[in-house]
């Protein structure tokens, strides 16, 4: 049934063996994937055996099997959540009709675009994280990085399967192109801005996995509602894996905060320079990193008004986050939603048709979820008796996309002039000096149970293993 066949070249639970043409096409794509992995995947890790979680089936018992695996032997495969033959489309103009097993002709271009965009983010994060293995603050963290890397690779596979299976020649070409673009490349960059930003250090990595992988959660959750059933089932399963990525970010930043608070308490100081001198990251720097990653990530949700978003929803391609749990009519015609714009130097709200504001709806869901997590970070400070609190900047801060693009705004939401922005920029966003300082802390710590001085050990190990477990065996 849902058990995955690992004896196949491409492990899968989609009966790949019964579709020879598709199987051959994917087997043709596979060497390119491996080449890509060798070229831009985690640097210097070929011989490491990593304590990885691998799915052997998609039911609760099977999808989290732990063991030491060489990353190159990790079986990237194609796993879909079990289907429901009677599933109905539950939003948009097709509400009540049977979910689609194949792509309807009129939605082909849009669906392909959605899948390509989602697929493009997955190898991008692997590329962005390429060098981090060399500066891991502990063996435990190194393992987490590698787990994320292999799963991002698998998520790429998931999208490539959909492209090959359902989009013919165009799909195959798009799948090729996914391996040709490279994060940050001048000529052929990744599609979305945030995925061309550098992830220069581990604080940036934790912020990225907290904020940007959470964008992934919301996008995947919206796609998991799709009328196109194979997409819904694939993304549902990807969501379960995505959770670990957010965990790495959330707990990573918590541990940085715990260490900083400890140093502040030991030295009885809140002077950032003294904190830095003691080898910990001062709270101001952490706040600036947060401001940056938060603002770059909320851009990922797209323009605040978008006719594409309306089309995607009405045609059933992409729903809202937790669509099934919402109490409205799931058609949304004639409803409105508030979005922000700047009028006469003032930020004002205006009502726009709900269908056109669905990017904003998803962004607001994301914001609510992010803010709750920042509250949990603040508990770490609260517990340590440190009065400072982290905050998320205003939604309009540092935006590059939509009606707010390019508007100069303080983190509190005050429109500022160019001069003030220039003067305060380094108070609000990480400066070159901040990056240089954080980079100076990045060294390699890989002895089991040892941790770099700027981060606390985790509360518990992975899969109930002890914290000093040998998570990576260096070959």
């Amino acid at each position: 049934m849902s058990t995955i066949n690992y004896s196949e070249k491409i492990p899968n639970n989609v009966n790949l063996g019964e579709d020879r043409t598709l199987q051959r096409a994917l087997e043709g794509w596979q060497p390119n994937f491996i080449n890509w992995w060798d070229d831009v995947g985690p640097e210097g890790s070929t011989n490491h055996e990593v304590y990885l979680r691998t799915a052997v089936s998609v039911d609760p018992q099977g999808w989290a099997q732990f063991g030491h695996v060489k990353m190159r032997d990790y079986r990237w495969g194609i796993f879909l959540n079990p289907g429901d033959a009677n599933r109905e489309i539950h939003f948009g103009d097709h509400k009540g009709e049977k979910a689609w097993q194949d792509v309807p002709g009129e939605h082909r271009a849009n669906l392909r675009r959605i899948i390509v965009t989602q697929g493009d983010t997955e190898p991008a994060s692997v590329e962005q994280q390429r060098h981090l293995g060399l500066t891991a603050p502990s063996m435990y963290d190194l393992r987490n990085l590698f787990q994320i890397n292999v799963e991002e690779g698998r998520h790429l596979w998931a999208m490539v399967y959909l492209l090959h299976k359902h989009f013919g020649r165009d799909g195959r070409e798009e799948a090729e192109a996914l391996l040709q673009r490279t994060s940050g490349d001048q000529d052929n960059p990744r599609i979305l801005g945030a995925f061309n930003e550098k992830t220069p250090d581990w604080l940036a990595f934790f912020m990225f996995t907290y904020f940007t992988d959470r964008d992934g959660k919301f996008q995947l959750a919206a796609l998991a509602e799709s009328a196109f059933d194979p997409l819904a089932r694939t993304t549902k399963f990807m969501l379960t894996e995505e959770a670990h990525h957010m965990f790495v970010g959330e707990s990573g930043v918590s541990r940085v905060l715990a260490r900083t608070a400890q140093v502040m308490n030991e030295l009885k100081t809140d002077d950032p320079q003294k904190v830095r001198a003691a080898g910990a990251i001062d709270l101001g720097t952490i706040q600036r990193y947060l401001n940056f990653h938060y603002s770059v990530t909320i851009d990922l949700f797209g323009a605040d008004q978008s006719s594409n978003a309306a089309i995607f929803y009405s045609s059933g391609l992409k729903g809202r986050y937790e669509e099934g749990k919402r109490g409205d009519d799931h058609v949304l015609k004639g409803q409105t939603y508030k979005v922000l714009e700047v009028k006469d130097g003032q930020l004002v709200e205006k009502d726009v048709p709900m269908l056109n504001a669905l990017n904003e709806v998803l962004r607001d869901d994301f914001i609510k979820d992010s803010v709750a997590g920042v509250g949990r970070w603040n508990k770490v400070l609260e517990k340590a008796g440190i009065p400072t609190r982290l905050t998320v900047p205003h939604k309009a801060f540092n935006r590059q996309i939509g009606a707010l693009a390019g508007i100069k705004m303080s983190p509190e939401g005050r429109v500022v002039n160019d001069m003030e922005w220039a003067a305060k920029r380094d108070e609000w966003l990480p400066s070159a000096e901040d990056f240089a300082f954080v980079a100076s802390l990045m060294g390699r710590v890989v002895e089991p149970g040892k941790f770099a001085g700027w981060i606390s050990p985790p509360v518990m190990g992975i899969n109930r293993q002890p914290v000093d477990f040998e998570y990576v065996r260096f070959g």
Partner: protein
Amino acid sequence: MDMAVEAGVIKQHLIDPEICIRCNTCEATCPVNAITHDDNNYVVRADVCNGCMACISPCPTGSIDNWRTMPLVRAYTIEEQLSWESLPAELTPEELEAAGVSAEAAGDAAAAVPAQTQAQAQAAVESVEPAFNSAQYGATVPPWSAAHAYTNLFAPKSPTTATVVGNFNCTEAGFDSETHHIVLDFGVVPFPVLEGQSIGIIPPGVDATAKRHHARQYSVASPRNGERPGYNNVSLTVKRVTEDHQGDPVRGVCSNYVCDLKVGDTVQVVGPFGSSFLMPNHPKSHIVMICTGTGSAPMRAMTEWRRRLRKSGKFEGGKLMLFFGARTQQELPYFGPLQSLPKDFIDINLAFSRTPGQPKRYVQDLMRERAADLAALLKDGASHFYVCGLKSMEEGVVLALRDVAKEAGLDWDTVGAALKREGRLHLETY
């Protein structure tokens, strides 16, 4: 035994709000919808969670793996859990005792932890050993020779339909704990089950919050080839719940619905569930079954499968030993059929806690009486132990096993770890 369950102790499943990242994986994974959330916390419904552990390894943070010994009556409610910022501390032995009900009530509980156990637990705490946690010995893997189990073929969102083809009272009529034997037929729908698995039944209608009722789980009481051999049907052993754990009158939603079904009615079924509480197929393996009340359902399934195998000559004399507790003989499900099994086939030990004029006896007492035979079985790597019934019996039974091992000069830590690792001790209590 219901009255006295108030003295019972449960291992309550809790999520650590300080570590949980609210990723929803556990809620999406739990096969019985025991997990729910609000904007603040993810929480577990104590009355729905069956400790199946399906959520444990998928949780990316480990925050889901928290258990607290709680008097059943004081189990943390959903509302309490939703308001937490951190996990409450374990109750101290004194608090546990203070929260318990009268010693009289405690003594009445066939399945409740006996006073002796509490004293032991307390002694353990005083000598600064970690408190005894029976659940830690339960295996999460099946015996090596078990057949492959199918699970979760039908999810709560897409249940299948079964037809009732039999329903009769298998306890003596007129007694409080009326228990029904129900046979469900799946027609041509594939619904493969093994002895030891359970299925879920969704009662019709909605609960007080206007949500569809959640599914209740029932152990399969028939062997793998059907209640009637060669038919696609299963049987269940369902006790009509007429009073809650405090002894106040209540009409259990699902158990009453099931007990009142008529032949020809249809029911919504989900599952099957369970991939570790499975019987060994190896013909020389021994099976020790310890149960109370409807915990006898999986034991009946295993016994019947062995009986059918024996009849067909495919069985090489692995031992069957049963410890079965109830308040009275009249309330013991399947009393009649049990009596007619040959003595050289199964070694039956019945404990009645409320037979007039007789001293109260519980399954743990019988296990201690049969210590010599149990010790021999504990030494034998082919022995498998199954415990099923009310949650509150679990600790007492595992402690009895531990004592039997110790008295026989065995190192319980070694034996207990081997039983767990090799899938030879299975706990399913509810």
